[in-house]
């Protein structure tokens, strides 16, 4: 009887959790969809913002491009460093102490408020390295923000990868590097892609770190890495926080979420496609 009750409670718990998760997520997405749907059309997507104050009319095209570029720079920078660090810690690091220190540093970073990272990016990249307020400075700052995020998840994926398969590979006299490149990385691809996607979305949605390092209220599509850019979250932030136009703010939010959805579907097909190959 106790067992029954426990099982029922347990089932209830996991079902409710699932429903709550889906419901809260759907609510947020639907809310933005409903509020923003009216204002999004092709013109909104493809034209520059306009009107007085800026943003009350026109669209968000430069911001879309800006956000995508920022995200790309951030994920390229962060994932190269993060994957390398994860590989080192899991496969090369022999000292438990070093591992602990690295973990502590990374976890510390994970909690640094993004605005503080923005200040760091400003002091170091914009001022000291004279990179200016630019696409590159902002992208790298975002990269710093998502680094711990990717690193932690990739490290976990490596750690959980089947030890016996790795041992089987070592026992063929195959080097670690080869094992990592040919066995571990391809097999962890799904976890890696999903954490990079997630981090990419995170980077794309952040306003605080880019405010000081490269995002501006208005700029055309950037011509080089040293141009300042527009970005969706900052545009949204200005529209909403300065009370310029809630309608356009929701429309911008909708575009941002639509981009996220596209990126996720892209990542999903990447991983699904892998399954097909297996068959």
């Amino acid at each position, binding site marked *: 009887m106790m067992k029954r009750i426990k099982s029922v409670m347990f089932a209830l718990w996991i079902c409710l959790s699932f429903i709550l998760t889906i419901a809260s997520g759907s609510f947020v997405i639907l809310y933005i969809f409903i509020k923003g749907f009216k204002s999004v059309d092709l013109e909104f997507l493809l034209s520059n913002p306009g009107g*007085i*104050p*800026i943003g009350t009319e026109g669209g968000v095209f430069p911001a879309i491009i800006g956000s995508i570029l920022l995200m790309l720079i951030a994920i390229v920078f962060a994932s190269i460093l993060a994957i390398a660090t994860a590989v080192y810690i899991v496969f090369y690091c022999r000292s438990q102490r070093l591992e602990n220190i690295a973990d502590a540093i990374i976890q510390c970073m994970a909690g640094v408020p993004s605005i503080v990272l923005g200040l760091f990016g400003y002091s170091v990249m914009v001022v000291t390295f*004279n990179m200016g*307020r630019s696409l590159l400075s902002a992208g790298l700052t975002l990269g710093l923000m998502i680094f711990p995020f990717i690193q932690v998840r990739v490290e976990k994926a490596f750690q959980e990868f089947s030890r016996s398969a790795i041992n089987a590979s070592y026992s063929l006299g195959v080097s670690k590097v080869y094992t990592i490149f040919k066995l571990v990385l391809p097999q962890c691809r799904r976890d890696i892609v999903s954490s990079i996607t997630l981090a990419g979305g995170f980077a794309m949605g952040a306003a605080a770190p880019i405010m000081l390092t490269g995002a501006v209220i208005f700029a055309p599509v950037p011509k080089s890495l*040293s141009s300042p850019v527009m970005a969706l979250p900052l545009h949204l932030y*200005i529209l909403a*926080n*300065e009370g310029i136009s809630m309608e356009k703010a929701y429309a911008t939010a909708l575009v941002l979420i639509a981009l996220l959805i596209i990126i996720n579907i892209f990542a999903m097909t990447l991983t699904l496609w892998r399954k097909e190959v297996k068959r």
Partner: protein
Amino acid sequence: TSQGADVQTNSNKENETNNEFKAEMTFNGSSTLAPVITAIATEFIEENTTWDKVDSSFPDKYISIYVSAGGSGAGVKAVIEGTADFGMLAREVKSEELEKIGDAKVYKLGVDALTISINPENPLAQLRDNLTTEEVKKIFAGEYKYWDELDSSLPHREIVVVIRDLSGGAHEVFQKSVMGDTQIRPDAIQSPSMGALVTKIIENKDAIGYASYGMVNQNKGKLMPLKVDGVEPTEQTIVDGSYKISRPLIVVKRGELTAPQKAFMDVVMSEKGAEVIEEMGFVPVK
């Protein structure tokens, strides 16, 4: 490699400011002022596209004016550190700041007033349209905790005080012109932006706060500005200074304006610039 190249071009630009033409200028600072400058800049760029259209002595380079918003403090900081040509402030420039900038040039574009606003559905709106400075002070200091303490005919409901962040430009103005030495009640809601503050007043019947004059104009009917000591916040009263709670909108720059900078600032300070400032709901300096 592209990174190295960029640093290169960037530092080149720095060196060339004095003798060579700079097609680019950057603004940073107050998020209140940023949309104004952006609007003027966009129009300026759309009209001219290249510098030679502005003045035939200029080369035919594309005009680039970048505006970013990081707060008044960040604006000053950017000028001090040379990461922006202009700083935008929604408050007075402090003397220490002027000192740090060195050869500072200050341009006053307009004035923004803070109106003591309530939700139109607040019973107070029916009762009276005026508060004395003393009453405002007591409300914001937390001496009046319930509306019926202000006027016994009002319901016994808690007063929800909404302010901007304590160290922000708007609050500084309010503190100076209304509160004096009296402290704001510590449990007042600090809104992260004017937009959020106004939203809060629109959403909450018991709320009172100092909404920017520009915001009130943009949200006509959704919130109700009160007279203070009988003075209604209007363009007239704000400009002549009879409405006390106001703050200047300022642009600062280190050193003399270069030729293209001057060309742009002329537009900002012109009749046309004033129109934009007015359209945004602020009061231009005549």
